[in-house]
Structures are given as C-alpha cells and as structure tokens.
C-alpha cells in the first residue's frame, strides 16, 4: 500500500505546499471585527472616562458606539452563517475526548512557555478543517460563543433600555447589565493585547499577520 500523497494527507495544501487556511469571508470578518472591536473599545473608554480624556463628546461616543456595535453584530452573523454552512465548522467542534484535549492543551502551553524558544517542532499541525491548536480552540470557542454574544446582548439592552426593560428587570436591572458589559469590555481589552502578541509567535513575527491577509499558511522553519 503506497503512502498517501501530500495532497491526500492535507487537501488544503496547494501546489506550492502552502495551506489555504483562512477563506476570504473569514479574513474579511476578522479584520472588520478587529477594527470594530478597537473602535468599540475606544468609544467605550470615552463613554466611561469622560473625566479622564476627551477624544470626542459623550454624545458622539454614544452614537458611534451604537452604530459600530450594530455593525459588529451583523459581522458576527456573517461569521456564524459562513461557518454554519461550510465544512470549516469543524474548527469550532468541541473535542469530546477531554483527556486527550487537555493533554494536547498542556503540550501546547508547554510549547509556548518553553519549546518555542528552543526551536522545538510545533505540537499542532494546522489543517483547514482543524486550524486551531487546543489553546486557540478553547479561547475562540469561549470568545465567539459566550463572550461576544453576552457583550452584544448586554449592549443591545443598554442601547434601548425601555425597549428591553422586561429582560433587564429579569436579569436584575441595568446596573447588572452594565457590570456584565464592562467585565466583557475588560476581557476584550486584555484579549487585544494578548491576541496581537500571540499573532507574532509564528515562524516569523509577521507570519500569522500575513496569513490573515493572504489566507495561506506561511512556511515554517521546519518546513
């Protein structure tokens, strides 16, 4: 029995051996989302800290925050329906074998903590249908299915308090809603720093950034 060809082993690999990891809709979604989140964080800072800095008026910040918020919500649905209707949804499938998942999770953490500096081989082989390493997978599942929707829903409630008053009452009042929204905001602020830095941990500091522009995986040193 002959071994499977490179194409059979990895159907995403093109002839130049580059894997097409990020389809166009995902890349558009990613950068629109990134810009949206940065603007939401910026206007969010302005809304919360008028007394500390005044990049724009509170009123302008509210209107911008609302409009960008709606845009980012629409963008999330673009992402959601793309994955829902494509075979790439496997990237977000939960790993049912928890023991195996966490074993790989810690191996990945160990790589980031030590192996990456020692030139060790990356423990996760990327594939268009399994492009996230276990740490990324858990983070993005949590972000995209829990944190982001909670932020949207709490944001919507605050966009029109009267319209959503029954729901707001149900969860304990507008102060509860705002506290949850701000906790998510704090999480996103931290995420932005860490995400931007982790993006530099590819084969070269620019590799992952280029991948998110071209869609193709950049060559690894070991390749």
């Amino acid at each position, binding site marked *: 029995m002959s071994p499977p060809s490179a194409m059979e082993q990895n159907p995403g690999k093109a002839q130049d051996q580059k894997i097409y990891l990020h389809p166009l809709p995902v890349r558009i979604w990613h950068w629109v989302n990134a810009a949206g989140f940065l603007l939401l964080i910026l206007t969010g800072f302005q809304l*919360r800290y008028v007394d500390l800095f005044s990049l724009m008026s509170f009123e302008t910040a509210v209107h911008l925050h609302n409009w960008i918020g709606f845009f980012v919500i629409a963008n999330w649905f673009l992402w959601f329906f793309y994955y829902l209707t494509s075979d790439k949804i496997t990237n977000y499938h939960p790993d049912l074998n928890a023991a195996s998942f966490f074993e790989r999770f810690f191996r990945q953490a160990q790589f980031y903590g030590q192996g990456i*500096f020692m030139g060790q081989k990356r423990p996760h082989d990327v594939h268009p249908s399994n492009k996230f390493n276990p740490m990324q997978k858990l983070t993005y599942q949590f972000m995209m299915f829990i944190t982001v929707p909670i932020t949207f829903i709490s944001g919507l409630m605050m966009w029109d308090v009267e319209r959503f008053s029954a729901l707001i009452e149900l969860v304990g009042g507008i102060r509860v809603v705002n506290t949850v929204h701000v906790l998510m905001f704090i999480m996103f602020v931290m995420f932005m720093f*860490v995400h931007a*830095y982790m993006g530099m941990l590819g084969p070269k500091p620019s590799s992952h950034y280029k991948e998110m522009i071209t869609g193709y995986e950049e060559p690894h040193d070991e390749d």
Partner: protein
Amino acid sequence: MKTGLTLGSLLLAIALLGMAPAASLADHHEEVTNPDLKCLKCHSRNLKKTLEDGEKMSLKIEVADFEKSVHRVIGCTGCHRDIVKGEKHPSREPIASRRAYSLKHNQTCSQCHEDHDADFEKSIHASLVRDGNDEAPLCSDCHTSHKIQPRTDFEPVNGEPCSKCHVDINEAYAQSVHGGARSEGNQIRGKFIKAPYCSDCHEAHEVLAVSSADYLVETCMSCHEVAKLAHEQWLPNAAMHMKSVGCAVCHAPEAELRVNLQLFDRIKQAPVRRSEENITLQNKLAEIDPNGNGLDPVELWKMMLNTDEGGQPSDIKLRGRLEVANGVDAHRLADHSEAIRSCESCHQANAEAFQNVTVSINRPDGRKESYKADSKVLSSPISVDSIGGFYAPGGTRIRWLDALLVLAIVGGLAVPVGHFALGKYLRRKNGNKSK
C-alpha cells in the same frame, strides 16, 4: 290727644330709625337681598367676638365684597345654616379658635361642592389638615369667606392664593420662563402661549405630593406635546431619561440636584408606602442609620436584605430617579435654549448630580420620608443588586471595575513583556548549557 300723637310719632320715629341702616344698605347695594340685609345690619359694623383662645375675631363683613361674591345668590344662611328664623342667634355660642371655626365651615363648603371636596380630600393639603397642621389651607384660606370670586375671575395675578404660603416658590415661578411669559401677556418668542400657573400643573384642589413626581412628567408633556419627539431626535435612550430624570433637572439649569432611591414594589408596581404591612422595612430603615449620618453601601445592602413583608410576596427594589432637590428649584424653569444639553454634566465621575443621595419611603399621603445616603452607594459593587435599576454610564461607574481594567491593561502588557523576557532567559540558559 297731644299725648297720643306724641307717643305715635315717637314709635314711628323709632321704627324708622331701626330701618334706617337697612334702607341705607339697600340704597347702596342693590344686589344684596333683603334677608341678607338683616344680617348685614349688624355685620357691617365693627363687631368682634372674643374666642376661647383669647383672640378677638372680627365679625364685620365688607358689604361691597359680599356684593361681588358668587355666593351672594345663596345668601348668608346658604352657608350659615345654623341660623334659623325664629331660633336663637348663635352669637353666644363659644368658638374655640379661628381655625376651629374655619374647619367647621370646611364641612359647609362640601355640602354643595362635593366634587371639589372629594379632590381636596385626596390632596396633600387635606393630608396636612388631618395631621393637625394648623398652617394647612382650608377652603376659606384660598377662596376667602365672603369675597368668593367666580372661577373666571380667579386669575392669580400676584400668585395668590398659593403664594400666601409658597412665597419662595412663587418668586422662583415669577422669574421662570412660565412666570415671565405670564406677566408679558403669555408671549414666548413672539407667540401667544398660555403659560401655566400653579393649578395648571398641580391641580386646584387635588394637589398631590411632589413625591408622586411621575405625574408631573405627564403634566409637562400635556402642553409640551412634541417634547418626547424632540428629545428622541438627539437624546440616546430618550424614553429612559424621561422616566428616570425629572424635566427640571435639565430645564432648571441652576437647580440643586439629588438622586432619590425610592423603595419600589415590583410586584405591585407602586412605591412602597408606610403602612402596617411594611413595618419590618420601616423599622430597618430607622435602625440601620440611627445616627443619621447617611446609609453607606453595606448599610443599604443590609436594608435591602429580606424585604419580604409579613409573608406577603414582595419584590422590593430601590428605584432611582435624578430630580431637583427642592420645590423652589423645581420652579426655576428656564427657556429651552438655556437647558442643560451637555451629557458630560452627568456622565462623568464626581458629577455634581450624584453627590446628593437619599433613600425614601412614601407616606400614605404620598409625601416622601427621606434618609440620607452616602454618594458612594452609587459607585459601589455592593450596590449592584440593591440599586440595580439606576445607572448612569461614567457618572455612577463602579470604581472596582476601573481597578480591574487597569489590572487587565497591566496584565495584557505583562504577557508579551514577560514572555519575551522568559524567551531571553531560556535562550541564554540553553546557550550556556551548549557551551
């Protein structure tokens, strides 16, 4: 014969003399009816009665005033029903005080003016009367006793009768956009607009306590019909603002403000009122801050714990509302061009609007019973549940979340810096081992 003539002439003279004042009254005051002339015969003089409290009460009626009174048609006995023809005049009956006499006649008014009396009974004025407040107005305090004008003439030029008690409020009103328009022929920006007077907003007889302030927003809207639409054009969350911020907060820019946290029953959808069924809560209020130095966040949280009353289902929360701190300021309404439009005046830390905080429970008559609270209750994480319904982004932000944000930024920066440093260390260590 001579004697008889003399006696007859004398009797006639006495009779004519007796009739003289009445004839004189009738000559000058044609509108006054004959039965009333009999009363006025005495009561147009400087009669005085010593009351039991020692005061000498004048019994004199100014005939000219009575002649113009709308009650002229019902005559004296229309109100003074204790004066019956053929029976003894009650002049010798003791009267405890002027107030006691007015109170007695308040009942007299209600015999004809049932509707007004029913409205009055619902008012804060009647409530004060029931509380035994001698300053609380009775019918005659506003309408006078014998100079009762027709409703059409009841144009309160000098702020009367309300200004008799509410002097400061009347002064504030006179200088307001409403008062100014009224004195300038109801002209606002060159247009005729019937500017409101006291009773237009507060009703004439059913004068409610201002703590039932919800109705006041509706009152403003009844004239300013387009205000809702106008606010929706620019004000984010306009409906919510109109619900939790009193109109005067922005439209009386000089006003002192406060946040009132009103105990509100979410099941009954009504403010909690002092009553037997709420006794536990009332006792808690009194016990928690016996020194009166203001409820801090922990005290407020304790107060809101176990607010169930007597086994009755209740869901009591504090409903926050930003309002003007006193009635005088509430009347200093300015032209809309002077209204506060800057969101920053409230939506920033230490905004003046959030420095004065009270917790209130309503008395049965709607008046507030307020307890001072520390302004920290608005920005404490402990209050997330107890005052869950009131929040102003920026203005009442929770300070602990600020600390958490700083921690997140520091942590977010520490990850790359720490990871980079770790890499340097491990590479150096690895390099040394290789050597």
